[in-house]
């Protein structure tokens, strides 16, 4: 994806001496118009080259501007151009943003190590989004989803070059078809049964995630620490989707949604005095654990059987690397044909 560089210093386009800011602005506007015309006429080649021109003009504009006035870094309280009438201003950034930028504890730990920590805490395969959320909530970490994108591929490459050279690999969860499940990450040291995904496994893993997060919070509280609001928020979000786990809000069992017929239905609110976090009433970790266990109970037998079956097949048919990173497309196609 093309990114616009807004930071002077990495510019490689030298603005023409004669081009003033005004000229540049005019040119930028003209270019934008031409681009949109080209896009509308589906002249993609022309649009591309015009875009390239726009990029360099914008860079030139940025640089020219930098010559005119000092650059304000984010968080710089003294900066700010008055009179622009924008809703933006110094000090308006959210607390979340500030936290991201100024204190990033654990950022010296390699990404794979951080992901490993989060997965170990959960004990079930998880999507990047969940890993990031768990790590942020419970480890005050600052992983970014994008950092996880190529992780599995890198791990696979490393494994294939020198198998089992590392104490653990971040690997795939395996589907019923023994291929790598889209988007899930797991740890290679887990037993196969923990890494395969049967029809009920997503639900079981979700419930397990909720239990692990709740238990972690209980441990923190037990050790006299206060669970950070982000952890409480994560717990509430998970509890929201488990029957009996969220405080009685009338939400579970309330027909929400679009009122096509019965406009004017009265609606319940959370109980007075309940702690409210991010729109969800605060959840009690012990209640969450209890409720999640109750539902787990329902699915356990069927899920265990399905996992055992898939894991057995995986052991029979897959090589080491495939067992960790999933069967190949070719192998799958062959199997498909033979069925």
């Amino acid at each position, binding site marked *: 994806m093309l990114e616009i560089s807004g930071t002077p210093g990495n510019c490689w386009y030298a603005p023409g001496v004669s081009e003033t800011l005004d000229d540049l602005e005019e040119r930028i506007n003209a270019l934008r118009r031409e681009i949109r015309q080209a896009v509308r006429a589906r002249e993609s080649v022309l649009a591309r080259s015009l875009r390239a021109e726009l990029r360099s003009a914008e860079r030139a504009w940025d640089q020219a501007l930098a010559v005119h006035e000092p650059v304000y870094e984010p968080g710089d309280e003294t900066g700010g151009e008055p009179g622009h009438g924008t809703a933006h201003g110094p000090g308006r950034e959210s607390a979340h943003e500030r936290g991201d930028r100024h204190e990033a504890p654990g950022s010296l730990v390699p990404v794979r190590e951080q992901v490993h920590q989060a997965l170990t805490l959960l004990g079930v395969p998880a999507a990047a989004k969940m890993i990031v959320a768990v790590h942020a909530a419970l480890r005050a970490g600052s992983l970014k989803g994008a950092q996880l994108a190529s992780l599995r591929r890198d791990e696979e490459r490393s494994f294939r070059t020198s198998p089992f050279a590392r104490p653990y690999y971040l690997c795939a969860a395996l*589907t019923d078809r023994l*291929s790598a499940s*889209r988007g899930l990450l797991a740890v290679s040291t887990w037993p196969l049964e923990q890494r395969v995904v049967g029809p009920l496994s997503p639900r079981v893993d979700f419930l397990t995630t909720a239990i692990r997060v709740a238990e972690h919070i209980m441990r923190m509280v037990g050790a006299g620490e206060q669970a950070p609001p982000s952890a409480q928020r994560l717990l509430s979000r998970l509890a929201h989707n488990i*029957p009996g786990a969220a405080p009685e809000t009338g939400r579970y069992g309330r*027909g*929400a*949604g679009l009122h096509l017929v019965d406009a004017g239905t009265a609606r319940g609110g959370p109980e007075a005095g309940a702690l409210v976090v991010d729109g969800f009433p605060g959840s009690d970790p012990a209640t969450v654990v209890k409720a999640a266990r109750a539902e787990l109970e329902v699915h356990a037998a069927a899920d265990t059987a399905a996992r055992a079956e898939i894991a057995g097949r995986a052991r029979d048919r897959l090589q080491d690397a495939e067992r960790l990173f999933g069967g190949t497309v070719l192998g*799958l*196609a062959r199997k498909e044909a033979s069925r």
Partner: protein
Amino acid sequence: MDRLDRLRGPVPPRPHDARAIAALAANPGCARRAVLDAAGVDKDATAAHLGYPAPFGQSPFAITRGNAFESLVKESGCAELLRLLRELLGLPIPLAAYTDLGDVGGNPSAQVRHSHTRKLLDKAARDSDDAGTLYDHPLLRLEIAGHSAYLEPDVVAFRLGGRFHIVEIKSFAVVDGQAEPDKVAAAARQAAVYVLALMNTLEELGHDPRRVSHEVVLVCPENFANRPAATLVDVRPQLAVLRRQLARMARVGAIVDELPPELTFDLAPDADGVPTRPVAELREAVRGVDARYAPDCLSTCDLCFFCRDEASAEGSTDLLGRQVRDALGGVATVTEALGLADGSLTPGEGQEEIARLLRLADRIYAEVG
């Protein structure tokens, strides 16, 4: 069907997605659209080459928002969706199985994925409850004028009490129980396409198509939070319109037979895909099939600007919309209507009443205007 292939020219037919199929029902009276769609002609490219690029586009913000909401509903094995279905339809707790029909590894063809979908749906339709509940990304197929259209599956099908339902996830907000009616209607039209495709699939597999519910579950964000909420929407009316239109398209042969044999909408693209067909020639070809322009085309058909210009050049009263046409009692052209109004034209058979009204309107207008 090779006649349709000739009409399109030597390019693969344009795939129909649910949105496009739903739009087919928008102007069922238009032969031009029926023929072009049946032949799988790329109307968008045709309009652009004619010099009337379609005025549609989707903002990247809307796309991002739609994707983000969908993934929110579906994450963790559709945890949010399960909650909604338990609330709305009383889905029992044990029914929580989630199968991603799209997660087949690698990047296989639509046929392979469709047969995978069929296999699992067949199993689900045969088995009792433990076969599965939620089926994400089912790749469905619909026959459109003899062509198989594969529907890119961003829906979830789920099974409860032996019946299948379609879940449609849309990111427009429902605020205090109200949503924009246009958007709800569009969502219902699209969901109907999936319902029909699922019905046909079950029928092909020897099951009773009535096992697909005509009530779809529409999931939208509620109020201003990102929290999903679900509503049941009955899509029977949309299904009826869709069926009718598909049947019409199956009979498009009758229209096609009337067309001159050498007619084609081939854009004759060169090696780079740039059309080389002389524009005048293409214009004549397109004009060779009758259109029925209505202002609604402006939001539903790629050819709208072309057809509007055509209607305008013909002085057609279609240009002004249904309300005006109704008020004019169906008088077809502006000149004719104005002629009747100023009395320079003698009303034809059956036009006496509207002519009298127009003359009166003309007189009053002159009197007070």
